[in-house]
């Protein structure tokens, strides 16, 4: 089977991908890279253990990016994204930030974690990587939507 034949004719855009600062899970990161490339996206993959500043720097180099996708599988997403408001205030990372990983929805505790992630300025929270292409399409052109809107969408996905 030639997976390349499934790719879109024209690139739907560029995505900056990486794993949060304290997290070294490479396999899921590479799988998502494969999946996005298969859907035609250009991917700048910053890899494991990437501090938020490095995402900001990459976005400075690729301001056309559709989104910054940050994987977090080790439960430290809040700490690893703590600087997002400060970076945004400094005019950096002015594009949708999407978090993905093992953030289980349902329990009281994780529900609060999700809200706090949205408070930090995260645009979307994705649990199933298979949803990513659809969600990226919904994001459209760079510029974040309102927090409440994002929260509502996040809850209903």
């Amino acid at each position, binding site marked *: *089977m*030639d*997976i*390349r034949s*499934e790719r879109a004719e024209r690139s739907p855009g560029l995505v900056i991908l990486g794993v949060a600062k304290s997290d*070294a899970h*490479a*396999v899921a990161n*590479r*799988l*998502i*890279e*494969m*999946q996005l*490339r*298969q859907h035609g996206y250009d991917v700048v*993959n*910053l*890899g*494991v*253990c990437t501090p938020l500043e490095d995402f900001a720097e990459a976005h400075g180099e690729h301001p056309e990016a559709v989104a910054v996708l940050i994987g977090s599988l080790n439960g430290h997403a809040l700490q690893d994204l703590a600087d997002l408001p400060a970076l945004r205030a400094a005019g950096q990372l002015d594009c949708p930030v999407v978090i993905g990983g093992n953030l289980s929805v349902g329990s009281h505790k994780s529900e609060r974690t999700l809200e706090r992630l949205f408070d930090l300025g995260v645009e979307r929270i994705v649990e199933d*990587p*298979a949803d990513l292409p659809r969600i990226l399409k919904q994001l459209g052109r760079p510029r974040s939507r309102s927090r409440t809107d994002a929260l509502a969408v996040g809850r209903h996905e």
Partner: protein
Amino acid sequence: MSELIDLAGIEVHPAVAATLPAWSDIVDHLLGPALPRAVDSLRTAARRGIPLIQPRSGVGGHGEMLELLEALDEGGPGMQSVTIDSHTRLRQFRTAELMLSERPDELNGYPLVAHGWRRGRELTRASAVPLEIRHGSPDARDLFAVALAAGITSFEGGGIGYNLPYSKDVPLRASLEAWRQVDAVCGRLAEVGVVIDRELFGTLTAVLMPPALSLAVVVLEAVAAVREGVRCLSPAYPQGGQAHQDIAALRCIPLLARRYLGAEVEVFPVLHEFMGVFPRTPDYADALILQGGLVGRLGGAAKVINKTYQEAYGIPDADANLRGIRIASLGAGELFGFVTIDESRVEEEMHWLVRETSELVDEVLAGSDLPADIAAAFRAGRLDIPFSASVHAHSRVVPMRDRSGAIRLADPGRLPLSGSVLRRQARLLEAGPGAAPIPLIDQVGADIRHFLDRERVALAGNTRRITTEGEP
């Protein structure tokens, strides 16, 4: 780290060098009559045609490590491991020392540099069989110096295999130079009659590794090692789970050694029992461990690194490891001596594997500066591995299992493979008639979880067993 002490050609941190005995003492100890040597055990296993079994093992405390080695000796391993903690792997020797004094239980291995070479010698006396250092350091020069002083005669790693799966951003030139120095010391020792076994970590990222990529990496590391005078190599290949493919890959190792390494070096193929997502039930886990032993024997491995039924749940306890040693040993032994394999199918795989490996390495080996040429090939994607933790490999290759369970290339990325190789890979991955298309990420994910699915099917109807009995 600016000023390094030159110890017989290897640059060592001054604080580490200051603790070491004189070079002549190190050599005398390595030549001592009582010291068990890895190369002797490997030769014996190769001669018998039955692989020796070696467990992984490493705990922080010295007393606990001595006890563990003594306990595992009961299982009859042919070699034993001293697995090193993460801090020592990253040359954070002070942190390792601090943790050793305050929270030794939290170390995920034995901090040999912090313990020092004298305690290392005690380890070699605790076990009846030779020891090997297993770690994952892109730069293991200090660790190697201490290991030599301890009288440890086998050392795992290489400039590619101990970089790309373990480090995010260590340039390949840097790791290859650090390992060149390690190999050069082995060369010097060989001249005075001390043969150090150098195992090469072809397992790489341990997940769905296409055999040709594993073989290509160990061939390149082996060529670099032999050029520095290394006389004993143990190239390791990770069990993928399809027996014909695994046996073929192991049997390719001596063929490739004859083609690329010359006659000066002894080469002992090693099988690492399945390193991916492991079955969760003791029943199925044990069966896979048994199969690993058998595949190792049929593939001509001199050594099999065993797994344990607790693999799915973390680092095994000593009892589980003992059972793993015994079961792998039974699989490799005379009980299954009657088992033969479809030789024509294995030969077909071997034909293609040798060809694929050559297509990957020949151009790199044709250059005049091997470390630079290896780094350039990875930079260009002409060498690549899936699921790299390092930014210095593209990871554009996409591996996938065919319907027999063998690992193939669904996307070769920029690997310089010929049209006939690529056509065969594509043909083998063709879906069966009427099969519904599956998204790539789901297919690769399912292939990673291959043995969980097979376990569920095999044990269906016996629901009591599909629990977490293996959890320690």
